[in-house]
């Protein structure tokens, strides 16, 4: 029933010394933060390390944190900053490593590929091409796209998370969409995806 308790109340409880309150917050957001970072860095091990870092930073800073925005928005802000630092430190575009996807698949409910393995591989390849197109977006465009599309954040919340104006968020979103269209349209016209 802990989902009924507001994040802010849990934060207050944590500040009052309740370790369990932080565990509840972590359980509540670990999947979302991990999913966001995994899409951002496309590497399972790195996404795990970054998720750990997000909650480590949150734990250390939570005592002095003031709820100017939602707790979840704050977590996404930490995650976004770590993701940007990650891409800077790598100084290269994230690579698709099949091993990572295999690790994910092992951890997920097994997909039934026995019926048509060729089709499965073909779909997997198409998906990889499309995700490469997504990774062609700039870090801000990708963050805006991911946060609005897959994390369910409103434009206003994304603006708070990334520390930019709502208008700027919209501009990044429009550019992301146009760039994706520019990359993907020739591919679907040639039946490559």
């Amino acid at each position, binding site marked *: 029933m802990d989902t009924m308790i507001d994040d802010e109340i849990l934060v207050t409880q944590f500040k009052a010394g309740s370790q369990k309150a932080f565990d509840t917050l972590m359980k509540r957001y670990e*999947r979302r933060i*991990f*999913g966001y970072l995994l*899409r951002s860095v496309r590497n399972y091990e790195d*996404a795990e390390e970054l*998720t750990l870092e997000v*909650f480590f930073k949150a734990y250390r800073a939570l005592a002095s944190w003031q709820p100017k925005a939602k707790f979840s928005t704050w977590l996404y802000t930490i995650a976004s900053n770590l993701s940007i630092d990650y891409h800077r430190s790598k100084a290269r575009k994230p690579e698709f490593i099949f091993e990572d*996807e295999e690790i994910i698949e092992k951890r997920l409910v097994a997909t039934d590929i026995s019926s048509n393995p060729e089709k499965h591989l073909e779909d997997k390849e*198409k998906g990889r091409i499309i995700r490469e197109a997504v990774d062609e977006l700039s870090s801000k465009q990708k963050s805006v796209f991911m946060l609005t599309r897959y994390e369910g954040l409103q434009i206003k919340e994304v603006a708070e998370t990334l520390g930019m104006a709502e208008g700027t968020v*919209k501009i990044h979103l429009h550019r992301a969409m146009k760039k994706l269209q520019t990359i993907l349209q020739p591919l679907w016209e040639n039946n490559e995806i």
Partner: protein
Amino acid sequence: MPKCKKFEAQAIDYAYGELDSALVPNFENHLTMCNSCTSKVKDFERVLHLVDAAEGDFIPHPIAPHNLEMRLYRKLAEVPVENPSLLSRFTDYFSRFMFILQQQKVASVCLFIAAVISIAFFVGNPLQNKSEYVANGLDTADAHIEQYRRQDIQRSMEDSLRNKHLRNSDSWDTVSQLNRVKERAQGTDLANIANKHLKNVNSDF
């Protein structure tokens, strides 16, 4: 197919589900007339469909990192807690103070209203327009002047009548005095009163 740049941003927002609901009917009406925008919306919808499918394959349903809780507490135990500096403590207290101010909005507004009422009560209305104040002052002065003028006419009228009783026989002074009062009281109700007194005085003599 003609280009329709004007609606491109709306086409993206529409496909993305972010278009302001107030703009939707107008844009949908535009779509019925514009093949270019209809095509764009379809393209953007296809982009989203493809990306959603690819990202859905990548993470079919939410997954949690392995043993996060244990790893976090292990890391917390390894890294010593830093003692906060004096500056960070000060900024922390300041941010807390600002936060209380922001949170206690109702109390702040009440305090502000109480302060305004106190100033208005003890000092005067600080919001009153100065030019308006001057205009009110002139009005008051005019009223006072008129009041003094009436009082002066009444006093003169009373004097002339008192003199009549004192002198009794000599009406000339009284009549001339009442005539002067009547002249001064022209345009007011006092002129009628002076006229009435004049008639009475003349009838007495």
